[in-house]
């Protein structure tokens, strides 16, 4: 859907990016100290785009004005939190990744008695359901547990419900087929009005819970960690910290999956992994 046309940072030549950065940093510091949400190490250019969306929709004209509103009105903070943390996602996004996962990762997982998967930054859950279906089709679901986490309770609740817009099912069915799906995709959901309600059995072994990659620690040891298109919202320093969290949370020979345009290049952990199915960003921890 097209984004509403929004007001923007001032068009005139006296726009001062350095001043704007001061305002943004003060706002983020204030949010962190008052509400505990830490956006201070988010990638600046996309963060400020989202801030300006909230500024415009609140009828304001400066970042400082938004700061005033956010610090005094928790409702504005809630809106901003949604703006800053919702990820756009899709079922079987990048189908070729799922093909590689079936070919290269599933055979390894078959050798394990129990499989622990962490889906970090699962948003509204589309990719969690995609993975649950894949594991079912490979006969591994019953010995798997998927820990699906996100910073945002609202999207987690949506993920738990497993209700997705019916009008996206054509796209998802195409993706499912390209991803090597073995059945008819419509077997996995019931259409009702404008919704596709996914079979509750798919979340039998899924634990949804809130986890903040920025501030929370590792909570277990996993065989697979999926974190696709989440780190792109972080700056380099925070990316490095989260990479360290993932490294510590992976069993030896565990698998780390990143988004197709993310990489471990320039990360200090690059040498600790091997990329098992280039160009897919599927890495195996080898040391």
């Amino acid at each position: 859907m097209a984004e509403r046309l929004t007001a923007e940072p001032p068009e005139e030549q006296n726009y001062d990016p350095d001043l704007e950065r001061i305002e943004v940093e003060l706002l983020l510091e204030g949010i962190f100290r008052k509400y505990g949400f830490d956006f201070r190490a988010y990638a600046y250019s996309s963060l400020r785009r989202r801030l300006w969306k909230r500024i415009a929709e609140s009828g304001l004209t400066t970042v400082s004005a938004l700061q005033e509103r956010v610090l005094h009105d928790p409702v504005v903070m809630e809106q901003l939190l949604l703006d800053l943390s919702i990820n756009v996602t899709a079922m079987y996004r990048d189908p070729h990744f799922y093909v590689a996962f079936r070919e290269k990762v599933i055979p390894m997982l078959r050798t394990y008695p129990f499989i622990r998967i962490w889906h970090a930054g699962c948003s509204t859950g589309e990719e969690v359901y995609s993975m649950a279906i894949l594991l079912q089709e490979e006969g591994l679901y019953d010995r798997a547990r998927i820990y699906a986490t996100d910073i945002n309770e609202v999207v987690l609740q949506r993920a738990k419900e497993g209700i997705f817009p019916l009008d996206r099912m054509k796209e998802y069915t195409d993706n499912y087929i390209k991803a090597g799906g073995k059945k008819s995709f419509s077997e996995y959901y019931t259409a009702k009005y404008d919704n596709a309600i996914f079979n509750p059995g798919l979340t039998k072994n899924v634990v949804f819970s809130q986890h903040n990659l920025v501030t929370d620690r590792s909570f277990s040891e996993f065989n697979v960690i999926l974190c696709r298109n989440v780190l792109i919202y972080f700056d380099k320093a925070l990316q490095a910290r989260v990479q360290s969290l993932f490294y510590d949370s992976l069993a030896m020979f565990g698998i780390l999956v990143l988004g197709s345009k993310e990489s471990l290049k320039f990360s200090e952990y690059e040498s600790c992994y091997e990329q098992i199915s280039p160009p897919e960003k599927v890495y195996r921890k080898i040391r």
Partner: protein
Amino acid sequence: MRGIAVIGTSWGGLAALSEIIAGLPRDFPMPIAIVQHRSKDSELLVDLLQDLTPLCVRDAEDKDPLSAGTIYVAPPDYHMLVEREYVSLTVDSPVRHSRPSIDVLFKSASDTFGANTIGVVLTGANEDGAAGLARIAARGGKTLVQDPAEAEVPIMPQSAIRAVPGARVLPLKEISSELARLATAIEEPRTRKAG
């Protein structure tokens, strides 16, 4: 490195980009970021362009460092933004039905590089890029538009010209040399004065 060149195109873009890329000098002194609307599956664009130039052409990845003489192509289904030092990708909602969006790239470039931004709008069948080019112009950057009379589809250049009446309108074959001239003026101002 002080500036950046950004190029946006849609329908007919491959031929137009090919002509421009092939005409760039091997010592082009700034990074170039390109948004070409294309389908999610089309991965060949970079290979096709790479065959035409000694400059390095790549599908941008998140946090790719920006360097002079490198051409970054927005991957399908991601927005591409720029920071001072590197490229930044997002999967935020499409803007005017497009992801990548030309406006998103252009605005990000002009907000980051200010007057040292060069924006180029080429052939295309929608109005993406016009608002972004206006932002570049408002911040004192340079604006070039392919002559709609020769564009494969004139809608995109026409809407860019409406948004930025002062933009330089040029035929395709003159855009590479003008780009190189403007980029050199930004990156090597002292050399120019001395020369």
